[in-house]
C-alpha cells in the first residue's frame, strides 16, 4: 500500500504561507503493531457479517420444518463450516477482550452526582456478564437446562 495518502488527510484548516509536499503514507503503514491490531479489529466485521447470515440460515431452517432443520444440522457438520465457526469463536473472543478494554477509558468524568466506578469494577462486571451469559446460553442450547 505504498503511495500518496488521501490528499486532504493532513491538510491544515487554512493554507499556510509555506508550500508543503503532499502527505505520503509509508509502505509498511499497516504493519505497525497498534495499527495491525486496529485493522484486525475492523476485519472481524467480515466474520460477524457472515456469522449473522449463518444464524439467519439456521433460524430460517428451523421455521421451515423438521426436514429442513435436519438438513441444516447436517450442513453445520461440514468441516468447512466447523472451521469457519472456530475462526468465528477466535474473532468473537478477540473483539470482546478488545472492546471491553475500551469501556473504562470511555467513561464520562461523572454520571450525574456520581463518579463512574473504577476500571477493575467496570471490567469485572463486563466479564461476569459475558461469561455468565455464555454459560447460561450454552447450557440451554446443549440441553442442560429447560
Amino acid at each position, binding site marked *: 500500500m505504498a503511495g500518496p495518502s488521501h490528499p486532504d488527510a493532513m491538510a491544515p484548516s487554512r493554507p499556510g504561507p509555506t508550500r508543503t509536499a503532499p502527505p505520503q503514507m509509508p509502505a509498511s503503514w499497516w504493519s505497525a503493531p497498534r495499527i495491525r491490531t486496529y485493522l484486525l479489529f475492523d476485519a472481524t466485521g467480515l466474520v460477524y*457479517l457472515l456469522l449473522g447470515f449463518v444464524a439467519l440460515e439456521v433460524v430460517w431452517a428451523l421455521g421451515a420444518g423438521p426436514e429442513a432443520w435436519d438438513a441444516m444440522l447436517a450442513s*453445520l457438520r461440514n468441516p468447512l463450516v466447523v472451521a469457519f465457526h472456530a475462526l*468465528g469463536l477466535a474473532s468473537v473472543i478477540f473483539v470482546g477482550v478488545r472492546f471491553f478494554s475500551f469501556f473504562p477509558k470511555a467513561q464520562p468524568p461523572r454520571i450525574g452526582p456520581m463518579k463512574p466506578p473504577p476500571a477493575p469494577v467496570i471490567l469485572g462486571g463486563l466479564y461476569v456478564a459475558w461469561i455468565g451469559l455464555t454459560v447460561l446460553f450454552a447450557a*440451554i442450547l446443549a440441553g442442560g437446562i*429447560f
Partner: protein
Amino acid sequence: MKHFLLKIEPVIWLLFGQGLLIGTMLLTGWILIVGLAMPLGLVPVEALSFDRAHALGASLIGRLVLAALIVLPLWKGAHHMRHLSIDFRGADRDVVVAPILYAIALAGSIAGILAVIRL
C-alpha cells in the same frame, strides 16, 4: 449521499455498538454449541432435535434472542467493513461502499425478523 450517511450515523452507531456488546455476548455461547460442540458430537442429539429447538426458539424470549443474534452482528460487520474500506484509501469510494454494506445488513435484518416471526 454523504449528508444522508452522516444523518443516519447515530442509528448505525447504536446498532453497531449493540452488535459489539450484545452480539459478542450472544455469539460466544451460540458458536460454542451450535457451531462447534453439536457438529463435533459433544452435545446429546436430543438437545437440538427439531421439537426442542423449535420450542426454545419460538418462545417469546427465544424469538428476541434469535432476532438479536441475527440482526446485531450484521450491523457490527457492515460498519466495521466500511471502516476497513476507508482505512485502505477508500474515503472517496465510501459513498458507494457504505450504502451497499448497509443495504446488505438491512436486507439481512428484515429477513432475520421474518425468520423469527415465522417460527
